[in-house]
């Protein structure tokens, strides 16, 4: 069965819940309504032979409505073909039913989509953060999250590491810039060396006592 035949069957079965498929660079993608995703996936797996979930990705289309998308890449081992299923998710209600009951592979992928976008997969057996740490307050792959990162507390503030800080976008701790202190001062070192160095800078003509 080719992907377009599968989509045809899917459209016959689910009617308006399935959009017209889009073909681009030889790949078929089809949009399915959020309410029907589990049924549609079950149909695709058992009736159309898409026995493998290759990938599951969240996408943030900031500025358009509905804002988020969950993208499933299905693969059929028997027919050797790929189908992309996309489900739009609105920002006000970010829940979507889990497909972990259909493909075991969905488990970590859905956790990652939750971790990065805050998409809530209803019925997931263990929906918690996977790449970021438990208790991290933001969703880093959303478009409003800055590349530099956001100030946040670490999982274990008592360990001494404390916080994550916003990263410098230009330069870095060892790159000189206009008006920055001398390279010796920028390097991490013992406190008394810094004091000595500052003293030297303040009184450049003072001879060192031997």
């Amino acid at each position, binding site marked *: 069965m080719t992907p377009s035949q599968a989509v045809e069957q899917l459209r016959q079965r689910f009617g308006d819940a399935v959009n017209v498929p889009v073909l681009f*660079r030889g790949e078929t993608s089809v949009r399915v309504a959020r309410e029907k995703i589990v049924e549609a996936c079950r149909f695709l797996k058992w009736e159309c032979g898409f026995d493998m979930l290759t990938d599951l990705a969240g*996408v943030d289309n900031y500025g358009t409505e509905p804002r988020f998308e969950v993208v499933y890449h299905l693969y059929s081992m028997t027919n050797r073909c790929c189908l992309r299923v996309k489900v739009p998710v609105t920002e006000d209600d970010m829940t979507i039913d889990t497909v972990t009951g259909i493909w*075991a592979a969905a488990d970590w992928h859905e956790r990652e989509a939750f971790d990065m976008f805050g998409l809530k997969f209803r019925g997931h057996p263990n929906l918690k953060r996977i*790449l970021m740490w438990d208790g991290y307050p933001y969703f880093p792959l959303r478009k409003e999250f800055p590349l530099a990162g956001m100030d946040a507390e670490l999982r274990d503030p008592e360990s001494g590491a404390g916080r994550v800080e916003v990263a410098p976008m230009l330069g870095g701790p060892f790159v000189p810039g206009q008006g920055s202190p001398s390279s010796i001062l920028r390097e991490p070192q013992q406190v008394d060396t810094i004091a000595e160095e500052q003293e030297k800078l303040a009184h450049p003509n003072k001879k060192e006592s031997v």
Partner: protein
Amino acid sequence: MATEHQIELMESAARAQEAGDELRGERMIINMGPQHPSTHGVLRLVLELDGEEIINVWPDIGFLHRGDEKLAENMTWTQFIPYTDRLDYLAPLANNVAYAYAVEKLLGLEVPPRCQYIRVVCAELARISSHLLGIGTFGMDVGAITVFLYTFKEREKIYDLCECLCGARFTTSYTRIGGLANDMPPEFLPMLRKFLAELPATIAEVDTLLTRNKIFLDRTRDIGVLTKEQAVDFGITGPILRATGIEWDLRKAHPYGGYEKFDFDVPVGSVGDCYDRYLCRMEEMRQSIRIIQQAIDNMPGGAWNAPEAKIVLPEKKAVLTKMEELIHHFINVTEGLNAPSGEVYFSAENPKGELGFYIVSRGGGTPHRLKIRAPSFVNLQALPVMAKGHMISDLVAILASLDFVMGECDR
């Protein structure tokens, strides 16, 4: 004295027996990693044990998360190539090739045959390098340290080849969108031929050290078995999938980059245990030698970059002397190549499995979304299924046979 000693032993054995009865069924949770030598990177495992038997495993990943997908959204298509080196850092060349093909698929661009052949050589060298490391550390993890020394000696030569090819040993960044950073230098092919002549001897040596080794067989056979159904259910790819007996290789199933012109076999296992995974990797190296040999013999001449002035950087000499080229160079470097809007998924058969790039483009010089489907991430997910009911020492063998890389898993 001897008899007395024996009696003591028997007494202590009886005591252990008694205590064992009391403690049987008591569960213990212990932590393995993230700085454990057998976890090959920063993987943390939480184990639930009954004695030494594993009841459950919870892998905890993310220690090496660098936000590669976020970074990709903030740079041009070409600027992301160095980041692909750092995905599966044991096979950077293969990642470079996969990423370049993914973006070229979005652009609808085909590279010239010479470029394809050089990329095939790159990808197969990366496969050999990755498998040499995988098998070397596999041996080491189950107690055969010698193998590691032999395979690392060979890997060193691959790094020399990388250095000759692109100037860097480790972070190669060799491909460009629509071609390569530079053509093969004239010294490269003789070096490669020499390497291909020497490699089979090392593979044979490893073969004699491991394949019929009683200890190795005991440690790996029927350990961490994955059935065909489980493997497909978990989306497993690469040698681990083939070890279960499914003949599925992207180079054969969906040939890309000229792989349809090469004659090679896809090894499959029958049981799906650690030993089969080892055998698959061994045979894949031999097949890679065959592929590289064919690539060298039929290496086409001609251009190694696609003739697309708006995508591929022009020659430096032309940039310095001609107006048109100067403009193209300037636009390409500052704004990036102008990709059409649309979305593609491209996957390549990497040493660890299927490395896929799902690209959403809204046009212009940067991706709107770039999802990396990392084989290590997907393959590691099946660890609890494989490890349940085995001993902790078997877990070490299973981890080694999975041959994952955390750089790719955590991205």
